[in-house]
């Protein structure tokens, strides 16, 4: 995170805390702040004051000078690769931004790729899922709601109206009217499931295609 032209490295705070096997709650109590505040500092949302850094160093028995240096320094690889897949995400990010908007110093605008990557990762984490997966889930939910509405209409309105409908053609006299319903329940369930899957897959595929085209177009435009 960049603030007033100064970088600060929240991930290092988390690393130090974990190294001492202290929970956010415990650290919050020690520093007399809320647990949310610790989380905000560690996620790099806001900058931790030097006073607080001093109290943190004291509480954890760390060297204040080193803590200060590392907090305002570039994140180390071990901080970047704290969980599996993080490195892969970073590589993907760098591929996406390869040659796009990188300054001579290797920064994107006023930010280093690492900072931008970290912000993007946070945004991704906030969203929780890949957009294409989200489309799939939303499509599935909408489809299920649609199915529910469809069957409500069919069973609640269409079927009774069919049972009651009478051909009122002039001069017609009915001796007998028999209603016969043939329903293949297993077949119906299979067909509806197949349609459901096709709808979801087509929606996801279309979204994926749109994303690719959009990305290629953006890269081409740059």
């Amino acid at each position, binding site marked *: 995170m960049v603030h007033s032209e100064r970088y600060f490295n929240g991930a290092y705070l988390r690393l130090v805390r974990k190294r001492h096997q202290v929970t956010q709650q415990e650290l919050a109590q020690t520093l007399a702040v809320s647990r949310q505040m610790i989380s905000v500092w560690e996620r790099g949302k806001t900058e931790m004051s030097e006073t607080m850094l001093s109290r943190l160093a004291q509480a954890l028995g760390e060297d204040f000078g080193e803590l200060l240096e590392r907090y305002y320094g570039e994140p180390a690889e071990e901080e970047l690769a704290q969980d599996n897949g993080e490195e892969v995400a970073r590589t993907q990010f760098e591929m996406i931004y390869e040659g796009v908007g990188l300054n001579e110093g290797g920064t994107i605008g006023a930010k280093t790729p690492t900072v931008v990557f970290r912000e993007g990762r946070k945004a991704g984490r906030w969203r929780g899922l890949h*957009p294409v997966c*989200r*489309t799939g*889930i*939303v*499509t*599935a*939910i*909408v*489809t299920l709601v*649609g199915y529910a509405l*469809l069957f409500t209409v*069919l069973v609640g309105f*269409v*079927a009774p109206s*069919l049972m009651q*409908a009478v*051909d009122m*053609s002039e*001069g*017609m*006299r*009915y*001796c*007998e*009217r*028999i*209603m*016969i*319903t*043939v*329903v*293949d*329940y297993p*077949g*119906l369930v299979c*067909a509806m499931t197949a*349609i459901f899957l*096709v*709808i*979801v897959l*087509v*929606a996801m595929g*279309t*979204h994926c295609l749109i994303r690719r085209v959009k990305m290629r177009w953006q890269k081409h435009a740059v």
Partner: protein
Amino acid sequence: MVSVVMASLMLASACAAFPAVAPQTAEALPCEQAAVQELPEGEKDARLWTQFEFGIRVDDTDVIAYVKNKFTFLPSVVHARVALYASETYTEDLDEMEMKCVSVAPDLDMGHEITAWAPHETTMYWRAEMNYYDDDGVYQTRETGTYLIDADGNIL
């Protein structure tokens, strides 16, 4: 937002395919030409949800046995056969009655009907028979009751 719009479009396009659209329209054959037709193997299980109306009705000149496909969910092959029988004495056994007319539809579209008819020139007992494939692909038979109809088309 994009996801919701896309999902709605997908569902709408799928719903458009739900009403049955059978490829061919069944027409009642003249009684002289009508014959029982069996469905080809593999098409007997093609129905998912079908509702028939079957019965006997009378107009000014004819007694009409009919089968109507009132509703079919998703495109399906809906086979139907209807036959009209008559006799001068009351009976519930079709073997003792004379078949007046038969109509067969290899694929009866939703909203369409097939009819088997004969003129009510004299007072006679009438009865109708219908055949269709059930959800297990078994050929089923249903019959109406026996009705006495006079020459003027009155149900007695």
